[in-house]
């Protein structure tokens, strides 16, 4: 394997590469994210941003209590977020546990949602604490059931104890399992990595190992997708593209609850990685409650007032 010709697959080569990355000044990164949050997105650009955000949502249910009924309802919502308005785009994907994938895929196909992919979380999501064999089986099951996207978690324990080679090898292995049947998102759980330096290192590690997307969080741990964390990841994909001509996607997940938050994310993308990333192919937002706020803000732009939650469906 070539790893873009940048590392050779050994841990020492990887450690060497990660060690020479410039540090991230936390105060500076926070300040840049805060400044970009002051952008005022109005009228036509707001309307565009809302529709774009809707098309980027990975509509998610990852609960122990998930049932076939719950997943089917989510699928309907994913295809037609607003049954009273056909102009609302479908979301970017459905995201479920691997034993719900078949149900989701079948139902989506039945209701005119062939264009909506099913993403499955994998590798002993959310903790990542299991044997490699289990993680591989987890991934295989999801792909066999029809998942076109795999959201894996990295081994944070290994990362925090400096075992970068182990973290790298796991991603390489899961990428192999995905083959060309599924694209691979790699979840860092940035809330557990804590420092922005770690986020930068994890970004490069994952991209070199074959990630198609880098993702902030499982949504089960706070803080999750804070703007400075997403900023650091966007800088990484931008620079990685410079180095390799390969465009890797970014997915913030967790903590993005309303339209304002979503628009702030789009501004971050626009002014960091660039407009080429402003498509569901390279940017997704992992969310559940966000979709309804996007719909209500969209209605407000048409009607002039913010609707009550009764005017959007709960799922």
């Amino acid at each position, binding site marked *: 394997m070539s790893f873009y010709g940048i590392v050779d697959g050994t841990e020492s080569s990887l450690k060497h590469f990660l060690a020479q990355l*410039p*540090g*991230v*000044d936390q*105060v*500076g*990164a926070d*300040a*840049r994210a805060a400044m970009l949050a*002051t*952008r*005022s*997105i*109005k*009228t*036509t*650009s*707001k309307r*565009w*941003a809302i529709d*774009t955000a809707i098309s980027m949502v990975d509509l998610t249910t990852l609960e122990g209590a998930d049932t076939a009924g719950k997943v089917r309802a989510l699928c309907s919502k994913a295809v037609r977020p607003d049954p009273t308005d056909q102009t609302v785009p479908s979301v970017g994907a459905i995201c479920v546990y691997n034993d719900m994938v078949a149900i989701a895929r079948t139902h989506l196909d039945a209701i005119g949602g062939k264009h909506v992919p099913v993403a499955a979380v994998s590798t002993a999501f959310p903790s990542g604490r299991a044997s490699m064999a289990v993680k591989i089986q987890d991934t295989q099951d999801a792909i066999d059931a029809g998942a076109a996207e795999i959201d894996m978690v990295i081994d944070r324990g290994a990362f925090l104890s400096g075992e970068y080679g182990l973290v790298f090898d796991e991603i390489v292995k899961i990428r192999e399992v995905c083959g060309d049947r599924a694209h691979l998102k790699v979840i860092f759980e940035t809330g557990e990595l804590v420092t922005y330096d770690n986020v930068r290192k994890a970004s490069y590690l994952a991209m070199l190992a074959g990630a198609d997307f880098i993702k902030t969080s499982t949504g089960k741990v706070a803080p999750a997708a804070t703007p400075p964390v997403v900023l650091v990841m966007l*800088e990484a994909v931008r620079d990685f593209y410079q180095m390799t001509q390969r465009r890797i996607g970014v997915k913030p997940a967790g903590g993005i609850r309303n339209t304002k938050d979503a628009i702030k994310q*789009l*501004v971050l993308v*626009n*002014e960091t990685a660039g*407009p080429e990333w*402003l*498509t569901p192919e390279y940017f997704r937002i992992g969310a559940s409650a966000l979709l309804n706020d996007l719909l209500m803000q969209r209605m407000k732009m048409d009607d002039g007032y913010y609707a009550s939650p009764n005017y959007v469906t709960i799922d």
Partner: protein
Amino acid sequence: MTFEYAPAPESRAIVDIKAKYGHFIDGKFLPGKKHFATINPATEEILSQISLGGASDVDKAVAAAQKAYTKTWSKLSGKERGKYLYRIARILQERAREFAVLETLDNGKPIRETRDIDIPLVAAHFFYHAGWADKLDYAGLGKSPQPHGVAGQIIPWNFPLLMLAWKVAPALATGNTVVLKPAENTSLTALLFAEVCQQAELPDGVVNIVTGDGSTGAAIVNHPGIHKIAFTGSTEVGKKIARAIAGTNKKATLELGGKGANIVFDDAPLEETVEGIVNGIFFNQGHVCCAGSRLILQEGIADELIEKLKVRMAKIRVGDPLDKNTDLGAINSREQLSKIQELTSAGDAEGAERWSPACNLSAKGFWFAPTIFTGVTQAHRIAREEIFGPVLSILTFRTPQEAIEKANNTPFGLSAGVWSEKGSRILWATQQLRAGVVWANTFNKFDPASPFGGYKESGWGREGGKHGLAAYLKEGK
């Protein structure tokens, strides 16, 4: 997919600009005599007519300040003075949006900066100094320090209301009264501040505002009734003032020009460094005395960093200062624009290489694209002289010692920045740099508690903090 930001204009409706202004003396607005137009530098529209204060106006103002000092202000306890300052601070906060819009109209700087930086800092200065008013005995300046009396204050056009706050707040907190002359280009927020003084029921004559030009300023400096002078402006005028008061008993603080060195080591946090460089020279259109106008860059990372800087500069939004998404506003005046053009032409002539991102500059108003010059050395005019515009001169260095030498090799000494992930290097560099303000991994950060001022030709004395109080006090009995 491009994400164009639709226009997001801040409304002007909140501001009520009169057709003509006079002076604010002894608690009242008096009509002025000779008037001149003040314009919006982004559009060249005339905003109002400002009075050119003459010797008699200055006389009246100083007399009012003297009377207020003797009869009212010096009789109040520090706690009572503090109450007025708290009230002024609170009113400024309540009228924050109005002041922000007015400052943007008069100065040309973006509303995002007046709203998020200038006006909050203005309120902060008044709150901070309100707290000192009754604690002067504990400032380490002696058992019972006393005010000088009447302070003559002359402020520049780059941060009109903020420079007013830096002057008026400490003067009042320490028990002095004030005659202040705002810059002729930017008098409107000072005149609105006079309304706030009335609203706060500040005793008559404690603050007096006389508008005008250099001649008005000279009249204040030379007036025998002025005990202390506080000036912020060019080194050239600062020297004139120093000469004028030599041999008199007048105390003075001078906050003058700079040619700040922003030093980037090869272990700097690159992304945030680029932000810091941009902030250091393009904030406020580069009209900043402490601007990081010389980038002193370790040679080994120069190419990489300059590339990143260019990519970042292409995202700077130049345009209508009242649009909330604008990053770079108008140059304050035609004169300043000419100065910038003259010096940048010198840069070209002396062999430096100029670069700006493509910009759509309006035909009306005064505009200059954000610009960098590479291949600059110490012997270039653009490395020596203060341009006071959005123009960055980029020099390189080989060793840390050389960086310090280049940074210090200037008659100025106001500010410097150091960018490195290595703490020991930052501490070492900070000790070596002859600059009154040194920023580490950041730039242009201000706080009323932090004393601001320079070495050498950047001036005398400090403003802000305990050190700033000292200028307005003398030893008591």
